């Protein structure tokens, strides 16, 4: 018997349907993955099933949970089930744990108040949960004293303490690097092995592959494809699914290595620290026109700082960056991780771009030509930055840089907030820019596959691995 069965779930805002009828069922021991881009309606589907939709959205459909039958149009009926039947795994564990309360007490509290155990019993149970999740001895720490993985496990323990058999994980790997992503997937599967149901909502193909089970692919509120995850991913029948899978960096074709043009910059013996702790030291490399330097490493290892040092925004604690002679002061530019934060938020994009064009003696024609080349609709220009999608805005940010005719672009995780298909598009444009504009690019990403298939030179800032540039350039740099 299914743990959960949802039939003809729809979500609409006023008269506009956002999610077209979707049916799904969740079996014990078999995970279900809902795959889709941002805006595909995957989170709305989960919220409709849990009865947590924002108030201006209306859901319809039937949800059968065990022997209960619920109406999705009346979310109040779901409330008693939260924590007891359905548990939601928080996206960012640090934010969902109480920062002023010891980890184990938060789990004890759920055992006592949601499941209704006695005080002593709840404490014993919480300690057992922690042992089970490999958190023995960490119970008395506060959330900020836990590592990301430990916090995630503590959050899982708290979410599960109410005795729910169904776990819904909404983008559980958002912003995590590859190693942590696998850790979370394994943890979810371990929960599943206890006979519960698991619903994973994600745009992360690697996570989907690892979780397995069955899959529903959503696009713009409609089901595109369903089937066993392995079958769908290995042999997709729909064009959209094929595009989505092809857009995974693991499946990209490697870019042709470019021959280096005139040198743009030389960095020698760079070091930087933050708050007294050394981030990196003795980094040497040089970059020439048309080349892409890929920088990888786990979060917090100083990738962005390295870029800022090269741009001259942050002084290095040792070493120096030498720009080639004759370059304009504005020849070094930066492409930001969050494009919305990089534009003046009260000005229309047209205004901002025209200001830049005027400042650098470019004409409106140049803007139009670039708009066309980057595949952007002119109507976007009339909007303000927050009314444009992330992928479009990142392309507009690239356009803004190109108006300056840069020789070096520091791209700081430019696609980490974009969907796979959009990500591929933006990275392709970036590679094209390097070639056509004769621009050196320093591309930072936490995704090693993406960097490996894009960059001409690689630099790893992983503290565990030696800081080695694997190309001969590094050796040449060191000899200078």
């Amino acid at each position, binding site marked *: 018997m299914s743990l959960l069965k949802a039939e003809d779930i729809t979500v609409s805002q006023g008269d506009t349907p956002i999610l077209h009828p979707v049916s799904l069922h969740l079996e014990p021991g078999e995970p279900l993955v809902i795959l889709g881009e941002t805006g595909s309606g995957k989170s709305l589907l989960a919220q409709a099933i849990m009865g947590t939709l924002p108030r201006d959205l209306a859901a319809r459909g039937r949800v059968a949970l065990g022997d209960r039958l619920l109406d999705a149009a009346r979310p109040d009926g779901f409330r008693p089930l939260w924590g007891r039947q359905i548990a939601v795994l928080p996206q960012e564990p640090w934010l969902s744990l109480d920062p002023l309360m010891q980890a184990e007490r938060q789990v004890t509290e759920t055992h006592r108040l949601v499941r209704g155990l006695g005080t002593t019993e709840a404490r014993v149970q919480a300690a057992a949960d922690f042992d089970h999740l490999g958190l023995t001895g960490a119970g008395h720490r506060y959330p900020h004293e836990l590592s990301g993985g430990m916090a995630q496990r503590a959050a899982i323990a708290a979410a599960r303490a109410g005795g729910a058999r169904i776990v819904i994980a909404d983008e559980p790997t958002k912003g995590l690097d590859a190693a942590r992503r696998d850790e979370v997937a394994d943890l979810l599967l371990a929960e599943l092995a206890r006979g519960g149901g698991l619903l994973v909502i994600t745009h992360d193909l690697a996570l989907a592959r690892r979780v397995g089970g069955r899959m529903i692919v959503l696009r713009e509120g409609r089901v595109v494809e369903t089937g066993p995850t392995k079958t769908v991913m290995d042999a997709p029948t729909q064009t959209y699914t094929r595009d989505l899978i092809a857009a995974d960096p693991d499946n990209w074709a490697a870019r042709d290595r470019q021959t280096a043009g005139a040198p743009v910059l030389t960095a020698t013996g760079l070091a930087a620290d933050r708050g007294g702790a050394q981030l990196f030291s003795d980094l040497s490399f040089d970059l020439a026109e048309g080349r892409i330097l890929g920088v990888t490493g786990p979060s917090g290892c100083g990738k962005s700082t390295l870029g800022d040092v090269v741009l001259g925004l942050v002084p290095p604690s040792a070493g120096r960056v030498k720009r080639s002679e004759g370059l304009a002061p504005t020849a070094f530019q930066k492409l930001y991780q969050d494009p919305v934060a990089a534009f003046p938020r*009260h000005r229309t994009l047209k205004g901002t771009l025209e200001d830049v064009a005027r400042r*650098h003696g470019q004409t409106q024609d140049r803007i139009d030509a670039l708009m066309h080349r980057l595949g952007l609709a002119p109507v976007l220009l009339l909007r303000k930055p927050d009314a444009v999608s992330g992928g479009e805005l990142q392309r507009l940010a690239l356009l803004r840089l190109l108006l300056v005719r840069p020789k070096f672009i520091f791209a700081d995780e430019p696609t980490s907030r974009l969907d796979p298909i959009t990500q591929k598009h933006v990275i392709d444009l970036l590679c094209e820019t390097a070639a056509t504009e004769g621009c050196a690019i320093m591309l930072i990403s936490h995704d090693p596959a993406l960097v490996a298939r894009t960059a001409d030179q690689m630099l790893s800032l992983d503290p565990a691995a030696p800081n080695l540039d694997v190309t001969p350039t590094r050796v040449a740099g060191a000899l200078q």
Partner: protein
Amino acid sequence: MTDTVMIPRPAGHAVRWTGAALVAAVLVLALIGPLAVPGDPFAQSLLKALSGPEAGAPLGYDHLGRSIFHRLAHALRLSPTIALAAVLTAGLAGLVLGTFAAARGGWTDRVLITLADALLALPGLLLVLIMLAIVPGTALGFWAGLSLVLWVEFFRLTRATTRETLASPAVQATRLLGFGPTYVFRTHIWPEIAPMMLTAAAFGTATAIMAIAALGFVHVGMRAPTPELGLMMVELLPYWREAPLALLSPVIATFALLLGLTLLAGSRET
């Protein structure tokens, strides 16, 4: 994607319009009233002392037989004018110094913030009284004293917002693109500060009008026979039994003006 709970918004528009209407009503009384019903706020007619409303004096007469309507209109021009002048001066000083402190940082910032904190530690009315004693002319003294008290608020707001804005990626990007400080101020800082400045200005005006009235009420502000809100109240207080309307007129006018300004300031959606 959004999992925020929608909270029904208070009717910001209604509040704002009520505030605007109250302020407008008071201003109409002050500016157009004397044109509609001509009269002299200083002319005495002891025979008419404390008598009720008539055609030439719609709000009746005070204890010296002066038209309360005309005295009130005069008072409602005087206090807001001083208050506005003080707010403009304070706003400009706060804006310039706040931006300067945030942009320069270091010693400039530390000296200015210490000065602002020191002024904040003194009671505002005391500062105004000191300035009244130093500066010749009561109106000028009020302007100087109130400016000195009010600039701190504008300074702190500007400094905090500017610091945050200057540290944002958007400003960093603009600078990398080759724009100078003027452009950064115009496109990044001013649009962030402007709405806050308006709110602070409305509150500041209310504070200033209140301060002038309070000092008038305790006989250390405007001197008789100048019609001033606080002074009118304290003059008419002994006759509240004989002429309640005479006392209530300045009280209601002050209340309406302050409430209007406060509603106007508080209704802005941030």
